């Protein structure tokens, strides 16, 4: 459904992505893995057009969307939930959620989505009138995901939803991600915690220094010790120590 073909991108003079090709089939969970600075977040930024594409094309539902403005991407219901939560600290929880539906005009559906989100994350309903800055890290992550869901995504780009969260909350969030996926949203998941991500993903890409080092079905990647040892560096190495 969404396809990146030979995409390259730069931060100033520094190359962030080098001819990346990725496919996200409808209804799937695809994960991007790799070390810090490998280009995972940059890939998401390229899709949401926060980072301009230098070369290569991006196709969504047979339409070339390589040169659109970020709001055009959002209009096509490709929603990016950025790293480090990035909630608007001086907006209330409610306002944060409303701003997530900025481009939508379907008032009834918005209401329904809002109640869906409250069923996923009941805590948000309790905190509705609080400033987002007063939430805990886990709550902020929930808010960020909730806010992204308010855009009624067809494709959801999730950047490290587990970052800095206690395992119990991580489990909870990953279950919700699967739930969302089951309802028909395709997901591109960026994770540092490879094993965690590969557990729920259908397909995975491993990035190294802005290139795709390896790709394959999740089970294949999960069970390939050599590969995970090499590409996942310390994480799997440490894991192997147990």
């Amino acid at each position, binding site marked *: 459904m969404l396809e990146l073909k030979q995409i390259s991108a730069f931060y100033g003079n520094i190359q962030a992505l080098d001819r990346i090709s990725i496919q996200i089939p409808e209804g799937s969970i695809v994960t991007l893995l790799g070390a810090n600075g490998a280009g995972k977040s940059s890939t998401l930024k390229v899709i949401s057009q926060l980072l301009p594409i230098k070369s290569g094309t991006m196709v969504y539902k047979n339409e070339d969307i390589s040169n659109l403005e970020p709001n055009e991407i959002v209009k096509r219901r490709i929603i990016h939930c950025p790293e480090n939560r990035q909630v608007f600290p001086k907006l209330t929880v409610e306002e944060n959620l409303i701003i997530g539906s900025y481009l939508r005009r379907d008032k009834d559906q918005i209401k329904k989505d809002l109640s869906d989100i409250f069923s996923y994350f009941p805590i948000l309903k309790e905190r509705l009138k609080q400033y987002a800055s007063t939430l805990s890290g886990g709550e902020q992550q929930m808010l960020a995901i909730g806010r992204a869901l308010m855009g009624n995504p067809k494709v959801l780009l999730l950047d490290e939803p587990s970052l800095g969260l206690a395992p119990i909350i991580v*489990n909870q969030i990953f279950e919700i991600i699967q739930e969302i996926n089951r309802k028909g949203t395709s997901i591109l998941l960026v994770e540092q915690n490879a094993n*965690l991500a590969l*557990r729920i993903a259908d397909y995975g890409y491993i990035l190294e220094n802005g290139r795709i080092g390896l790709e394959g079905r999740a089970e294949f990647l999960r069970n390939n010790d050599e590969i995970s040892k090499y590409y996942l560096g310390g994480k799997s190495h440490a894991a*192997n*120590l*147990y």
Partner: protein
Amino acid sequence: MLLELKKVTVSFGGLTAVNNLDLQVDEGMIFAIIGPNGAGKTTILNCISRFYTPCSGQISFKGENLLTKKTHKVLASGISRSFQNVELFSKMTVLDNLLVGLHPSLKSSLLSNAFKTKKNKQEEEAAKEIAFEILELFDLKHHANEEVRNLPFGIQKMIDIGRAIISKPKLLLLDEPVAGMNIEETKKNAELITRLRDEFGITILMIEHDMSLVMNISDRIAVMDFGKKIAEGTVTEVQNNPKVIEAYLGEVQEDVGT
């Protein structure tokens, strides 16, 4: 004992970042603090380097109370640090970055600086020599006169460490020294850290996520979770601590176990 934290608690607006922490670092050790993001690790470093003041507890260094010292006096007392996302002076050259690390030890006055007296010249020359020694050690000599912002991240990280050790501290605080580095660079850095301890006698307190590095070179490891220390010990002790496995490596452990 070189550094000792006693019952240190830090909180920001109701949120407790570090809770009642005790920590002891002996001289000549490589001491690692690990734990998930947001566990309060960087906060500890910031307390030791006096950017934060804990709400309660004590920190002493070489038996001296560190909490009475101002931030800019910490380096002179023998504690230096590197930064998580490299806080280099990006529009300065590599050489100048290192020279700022020598700031407290340069004694010439404003006037002798402005008039470039002989004493000042000699001092500057001597400082440059030291800087070049460090560059030699890091194999960065050819970058000496380049602006830091034009260099790759890996090299910037090295310079960050170089700037921290140029003043020959007793204790070096490293905040994720290999984050964003590839395997090669990580290896190189691991060697370097060990050398710093062995050849220069610098005690090292580091925060790191890269377990290969931590497990390979640390003498002692403390594990933090949600502001609390949940375990401390040698590599094997920590690795076999079920609390650690559950809190920090939980998900992974389950996978590997099957």
